[in-house]
């Protein structure tokens, strides 16, 4: 790509370092920014810089936060006795969007996968154990992807937590809502049959 301006070239290079952005998209974004009012572009870049500078990890749950304690952990209406364990911040957002959960979270920061160099010590597991040890926790809900590595992580956590008198549950696995049975894969469908639930518990919502 030939640029008439070094300034443009630098901006395009910077934008194309972002995931999912190729050279052409980067050029399109840069040209768009040139045509925007200056104050708008300034506030755009300020938003990015101050996000990077000031964002914190919540000391309790490791979720992204503006303060030392995140807005979920500091919300008095959230049920502290209930902790939902997730892999990443994105999972917190996905569960928050359901409006079905009023407890608190714990973000592990990944799952156990020695093949990718992630052992148990690389994850925020000690934080979870001390939360359980020092607070009145009744139930831990494991909302971890049902992959082989997810299962490893789940087993590992439940072994670490077995000395505490708490309930450990995992999110249900089965046929997608609004999905048709014939399109469900065999493994999922087989599992849904084995771990079926009484009819009455489906209808109450």
């Amino acid at each position: 790509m030939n640029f008439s301006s070094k300034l443009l070239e630098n901006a395009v290079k910077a934008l194309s370092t972002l995931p999912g952005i190729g050279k052409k998209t980067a050029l399109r974004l840069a040209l768009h920014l040139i045509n925007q009012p200056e104050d708008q572009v300034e506030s755009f870049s300020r938003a990015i810089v101050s996000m990077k500078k000031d964002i914190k990890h919540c000391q309790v749950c490791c979720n992204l936060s503006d303060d030392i304690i995140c807005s979920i952990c500091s919300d008095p209406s959230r049920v502290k006795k209930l902790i939902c364990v997730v892999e990443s911040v994105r999972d917190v957002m996905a569960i928050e969007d359901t409006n079905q959960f009023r407890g608190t979270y714990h973000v592990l920061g990944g799952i156990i996968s020695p093949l990718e160099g992630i052992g148990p010590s690389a994850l925020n597991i000690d934080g979870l154990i001390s939360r359980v040890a020092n607070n009145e926790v009744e139930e831990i809900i494991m909302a971890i992807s049902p992959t082989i590595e997810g299962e490893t992580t789940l087993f590992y956590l439940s072994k670490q937590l077995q000395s505490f008198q708490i309930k450990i549950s995992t999110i249900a696995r089965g046929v997608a809502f609004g999905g048709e049975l014939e399109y469900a894969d065999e493994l999922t469908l087989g599992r849904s049959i084995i771990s079926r639930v009484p009819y009455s518990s489906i209808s109450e919502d």
Partner: protein
Amino acid sequence: MENACLSMWLNQLILTNYKNYKWEEFNFDPVINCFTGLNGMGKTNLLDAIYYLSMTKSYISTNDSLVSRFNTDYFRLEGHYSRLEQHEKIVAKVQPNKAKVFEVNLNPLNKLSEHIGFLPVVFIAPDDISIIMEGSELRRKFLDNTLAQTNTTYLSHLLHYNRVLHQRNAYLKQIANEKNTDAILLDIYDEQLEKPATYIYHARTEFLKLFNPVFNEIYQKISNEKETVGVEYQSKLDGDSLLNLLSLNKKRDVFLQRTSVGIHKDDLLFTLEENPLKKYASQGQRKSFLLAIKLAQFTYLKNCLGINPILLLDDIFDKLDPFRVQSLINHLITNFKGQIFISDTHNHRIPGMLTDLGVSHLHKEIIDGKWKK
């Protein structure tokens, strides 16, 4: 035809950049197809392409990047099959840094493993003799290849087992470097291995019970001998649970930085009159043994799936006298009613024999990745 509903055959194959084929199209005979030509012309590659469309990988090259033609980086295979009176179009597309794509009637498959067993296939090549002479890996590959084609649960347990095993081995390496032994995670991997390992152990045991009688019958027919042959399953899981074995070997595994027991160490013992084949058999006996084990695989696949597999015979008539070749061909045609693909370096030997026998067949001479028009 023995039974019309057993039939499956490849009508048409189009290769693009597959090994030494730049672009070539073949229309096949439903019964016998014979490719002749000098060494290095692409006869084996053609059979390998047919294998690829069934098993989603090459029989000969372990790495897809070695499959595409010299100086190219992608390849494509398109096969048109008639299967249980339905037309099935299978396309394989492999490009660098992209996931391998398999399409069945234009629908891309979510998992390649779903495809295994849809178009059963048996490949017989001269190099297969190493299954008798060399390490246990090749014998496990034979077991897995047969069971994966007939039992999808087996395949998913095997993939699961291998994935956990890789993680366990990576973890053993990691703790060796960090000098910390967090035994809990090893225990968890052990538990995760237990279920698939037990399933695989039982499936392999059951398979050999069914396989041995079929194998003996075929061996005696093609060798014209009364000798008994056997395939004996050797597994440490015989009489002990994997959990127990893994915990007994834990110290060793930590030292070796890999998992030293499990179904990935199983082996098969081949016997002739109850003696180990490796030590006691002559060249000819080995050759008959190999041929019989593969043809027994064919029969086993046919019995399980209700479909005649495609039989790929790569240069197996080499060093056989004309009389034996003829008796083998005769035997194959009468007893193995699947579509057969044969490669041979003699231009007229096999086609001539087929003509004499009055068997319909297709003959193509292969020259440098093209058939002679």
